[in-house]
């Protein structure tokens, strides 16, 4: 855990499903990185967060995430639209986005990569796999990968 000291927020997860949010939270906690995540419930909220709008105006309480986990099928603004908006925003496009979805449709995979997604992951079907995923994710993005500085 070199890039980011444990205990500081670094992953923003956008998922509309309360069960999934709870399960992800449990999985991250199981991996001892539960305090590093935050949730938003749809694409619109995600964009509001990233653009510091409304209740997210406070820079200190709501810092920008290091990476974003994004579900594709969500109400209001879905993951595809949110992804497009992030990747066309000059400032936000530097944040890696990882799609985490149930969709196995080939065209979703293709479309997401075309829009500039960094990884496309199909939600693991067991809790054990989910925990394994959170650990791998952390290890990869925060131990091996060099992430951009968001403040310059």
């Amino acid at each position, binding site marked *: 855990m070199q890039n980011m000291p444990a205990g500081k927020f670094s992953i923003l997860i956008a998922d509309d499903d309360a069960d999934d949010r709870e*399960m992800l939270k449990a999985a991250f906690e199981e991996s001892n990185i539960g305090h590093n995540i935050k949730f938003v419930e749809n694409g619109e909220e995600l964009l509001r967060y990233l653009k510091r709008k409304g209740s997210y105006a406070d820079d200190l309480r709501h810092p920008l995430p290091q990476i974003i986990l994004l579900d594709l099928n969500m109400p209001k603004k879905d993951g595809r639209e949110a992804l497009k908006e992030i990747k066309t925003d000059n400032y936000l496009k530097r944040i890696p986005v990882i799609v985490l979805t149930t969709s196995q449709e080939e065209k979703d995979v293709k479309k997401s990569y075309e829009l500039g997604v960094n990884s496309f992951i199909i939600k693991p079907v067991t809790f054990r796999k989910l925990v394994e995923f959170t650990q791998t994710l952390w290890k990869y993005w925060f131990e091996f990968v060099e992430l951009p500085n968001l403040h310059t």
Partner: protein
Amino acid sequence: MHNPVQRKIRLGFFIAFSVIIAASFFSYLVTKNLLDNATRLNHTIEVSKRLETIIKQLKDAEAAIRGFNLTKDSAFLHPDMGERSNRIANEYAALRHITTDSQRQQRHLDTLKTLLDIKYKQLKLGAHSDTPNGEKRSVTEGEKVMDRIEQKVDDMMHIEDTQLHEKAELFRFFSVLWVPVIFISSLVAILIGIYSYVTLTKEFKLQLHIESKLKSYQRDLQQNIMLLNKSNQELEQFAYVASHDLQEPLRKISTFSDRLQIKYRDQLPPDASQLLDRMVLAVSRMRVLINDLLMFSRAGRIAPESITEVDMSALLQNVLSDLEVALQEKNAVVHAAQLPVIEGNITNFQQLFQNLLTNAIKFAHTGRQLEINISYQILNGKDITVVKENRWDEQFCRICIEDNGIGFDQAYAERIFLIFQRLHGISEYSGTGIGLAICKKIVDSHQGFIQAYGYPNKGATFVIILPLKQKK
């Protein structure tokens, strides 16, 4: 147009045409006859007029001579006998000219000429004689010659009359026939005309009716195609949505039960943990089924641009090398012919062979070495029973995949291509029963045919019939 009607109309027109030609010809004959008759009449009138003139001139000349002999007044000899003879000779010449076509008349005229020559001499003598004796003799002779001339003229008149009469007879014959012939032929032509009109009108109405029917069928067909396309789209959408939305709760069931087992590992009695395991197993089978359903709904969807010429031999080698491990496990022998090039979607063909060969491997007989024979034939559509007449010109490749596995009862030959249909319990052979259903869908979408022949405990043969060229 219906053939019998066309034939009838053609026959009708032929008859009408013949009748009109016949009537025209007959009318021509009648008219020609009428004109001939008129010419003949004129001819007769002229001949008789000229003959009468000759007689009259001769009588006038004789009367003049008699007058001169009685009164000795030379005024009677004016015009003189020479001139009178010339006038008669002119009439004679004219007669000769107009009767050139009749030999009999010419012969009569020859005789008349001789008589007239005698008469000319008598007249010349009569004008100069002054002796009563000679006069008496000359008068008697003159009478005699005159009688003979008149006799000749009568003969000639008689010939003319006979000819005229003959012509008139012929004309009468024609004119008697003419009216009924014209009447009947007109009637026939009119009847045929009416019949043709009625038939053609009927046919025309029928054509209109058929056309409107055809148009309405076309409309119905288009509507049905539209509905079909729509329902196809809906079905695809349904399969997609169903498999996604059905996956969600499944994933949750398995994640939560997994979490349950991990979190309360120590508190759960062993049988509860077992029940959870079975639940997870059922869920994973459900997931496989849904994935298969999704795969089935996607199979055979081929975009026109994805159709290429596929070298089936190379493709088969690829599939065989993919299945190498499985084939080795069963110690299988594969005899494959050099397959031709067929137009189609390469991914689909790959799946087709993969599924069929996997099937053969899966249902191998445990008591003998698995043998798979792959052969082919190129056939015309005409020579394949399942091919409809409209595709008889197309060429097909008939590929047989034959194995010596456990086979199946021929009664199930149709059923095995249905989705999720299985002939064996899940504990005997794994799988959901999707493989052959996908094969059928692929073959169908390539406008081909697939058939299965089973021989229990001996083996199975799968026959794929694919067109060499895909219709654009």
